[in-house]
């Protein structure tokens, strides 16, 4: 059995700065594994341990995602090996394009039973890749996954839905996106860090994957900061709670908020 974890190697926007022109300056932001992806690895590790599956990390992206440091950082979290597509033409690639490349890697690995991803990427946060990836593979996609048990071909998947939880049974391969708080990922130990350097890493050429290029080109042509809202700076000057509540309701009605 093979489980793939698709993870992203990217920079945390909290460490980036925004210039006066609205352009994000990423130069001070240190690259790392995207915030929620360790959760995906942890969930996958649990399932892999229970089913003796091989756990394969896959990442695709521009220059930097395949450095030895990046690979070791991901592998130290419990992956058995990694398959990496590092190509600068993927700089700024959209979710559909990235998902198509990941799908090609999954097909190339072959006999993959399950793909697990994080909830959303820390830099883009569009939550689209798992769904598009599932579409590319022709597999079902499940988001907000809280736990996975069972065997390939008979997986029990728990997921959070608005107002509660559901349990699904899935009989074939699928793409699962773990919820941000599905589990608390463990911090790798010192031995894991040293062992990571000994695990196999396969670098795959983008050209060798034969991913059909999209004919559409998307570029950002305009930027604006969010419009500043007019503030009323209205103070309710009363100590009686009932009176204050009534005044608040009145004020909200006046501006059409109620």
């Amino acid at each position: 059995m093979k489980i793939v974890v698709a993870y992203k190697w990217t920079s945390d926007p909290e460490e980036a700065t925004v210039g006066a022109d609205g352009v994000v300056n990423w130069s001070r932001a240190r690259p790392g594994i995207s915030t929620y992806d360790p959760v995906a690895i942890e969930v996958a590790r649990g399932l892999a341990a229970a089913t003796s599956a091989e756990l394969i990390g896959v990442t695709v992206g521009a220059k930097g995602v395949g450095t030895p440091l990046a690979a070791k950082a991901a592998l130290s979290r419990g992956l058995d090996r990694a398959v990496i597509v590092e190509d600068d033409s993927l700089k700024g690639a959209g979710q559909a394009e990235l998902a198509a490349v990941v799908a090609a890697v999954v097909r190339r690995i072959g006999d993959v039973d399950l793909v697990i991803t994080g909830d959303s990427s820390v830099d883009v946060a569009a939550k689209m890749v798992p769904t598009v990836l599932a579409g590319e593979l022709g597999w079902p996609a499940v988001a907000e996954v809280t736990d996975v048990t069972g065997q390939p071909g008979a997986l029990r998947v728990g997921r959070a839905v608005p107002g509660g939880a559901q349990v699904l049974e899935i009989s074939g391969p699928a793409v699962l996106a773990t919820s941000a708080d599905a589990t608390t990922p463990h911090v790798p130990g010192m031995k894991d860090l040293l062992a990571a350097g000994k695990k196999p890493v396969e670098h795959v050429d983008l050209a060798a994957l034969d991913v059909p290029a999209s004919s559409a080109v998307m570029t950002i042509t305009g930027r604006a900061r969010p419009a500043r809202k007019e503030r009323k700076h209205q103070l309710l000057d009363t100590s009686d709670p009932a009176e204050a509540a009534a005044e608040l309701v009145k004020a909200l009605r006046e501006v059409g908020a109620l």
Partner: protein
Amino acid sequence: MDFELTDEQELVRSTVREFAEAELAPVAGEIDRDHRFPEEVLPKMAGMNLMGMPYPEEYGGAGTDYVSYMIALEEVSRGCATTGVIMTAHTTLATFPIYKFGSQAQKDKYLSDMASGRRLGAFALTEPAAGTDAAAGTCTAIRKDNSYVLNGSKIFISNAPFAEIYIVFAKTDPDAQGTRGMSAFIVERDTPGFSVGEAEHKLGIRGSSTPPLYFTNCQVPADALLGQEGQGFKIAMQTLDGGRIGIGAQALGIAQAALDAAVAYAKERVQFGKPIASLQAIQWMIADMATSIDAARLLVYRAASNIDHGFPYSTEGAMAKLFASETATRVADRAIQIHGGYGYTESYPVERHYRDAKITELYEGTSEVQRMVIARAALR
């Protein structure tokens, strides 16, 4: 010359930082306030393989290089200086003597339990009347048949009473001159005649326990002797040579924590309509703090790198400890200055960093002792 850390060393830093920020920093203030030894933290440290980093895996260690160990100790101390001293007192002071001087039987018996963090160790050299002048100790260990009988007391012993294994120095030949009559022993906590006194109330690193030890006709088997009779002083000094670099790393972590706090506060605190970070007076303090921390870091890593390369490190370690510890005290002082009156209160962590920093100028050889070691080498 190469100043780049390896991938593994970089990962040690980011990983231990992640651990320290999640597990150590949040409790550092509370254990200081309550003078509480953070027992619950030790299994977590062990789980991260942080209690025996430089020892080979077959002995339960993590098998890292010494630079990685120092980086980890720096990051742990940045989160919590108390945990830093627990880690180094255990890893270097208590475990190194067994690793370096222990018989195969002693290594088999103790090393994997210690290097994996299952059993905590302590190092007992200092006595009430023998601090810097360690050879003046009056603890005795007199051979009797197939055992030694220990009598006397020790003071300021980090990790006691939570430690289970103690490296104890005592005179096997009380009449010998100078350093010659001293020997080292491995003493287990439940040995009859051995007891631990009340922990001292301290200025800083308040979560670490520092009580006296008492030996009253405490009988240990002859095979508790570490190395040869009369080798004790050498064992102590070699252990402290490495330990000093660790105190340098602890000081570095404290200094970095103080600088981090000062930078954050300077950007946030507004006076005269703008953040105080925009004032040149504050910027100059921050520039000096950052520069001396960087210099201290280079000294600490260089001394550790000497160990990794099999080069001499005694003088380099003394320089690293001297400079890093005095940097920590100075930087913490400046961090309070930048915080103004708020820095003098417990609402901000810098008063704790200030109290924690001071010990690094005292234990494992005072600054005066480090200067003596450095001057001796320079004047040779």
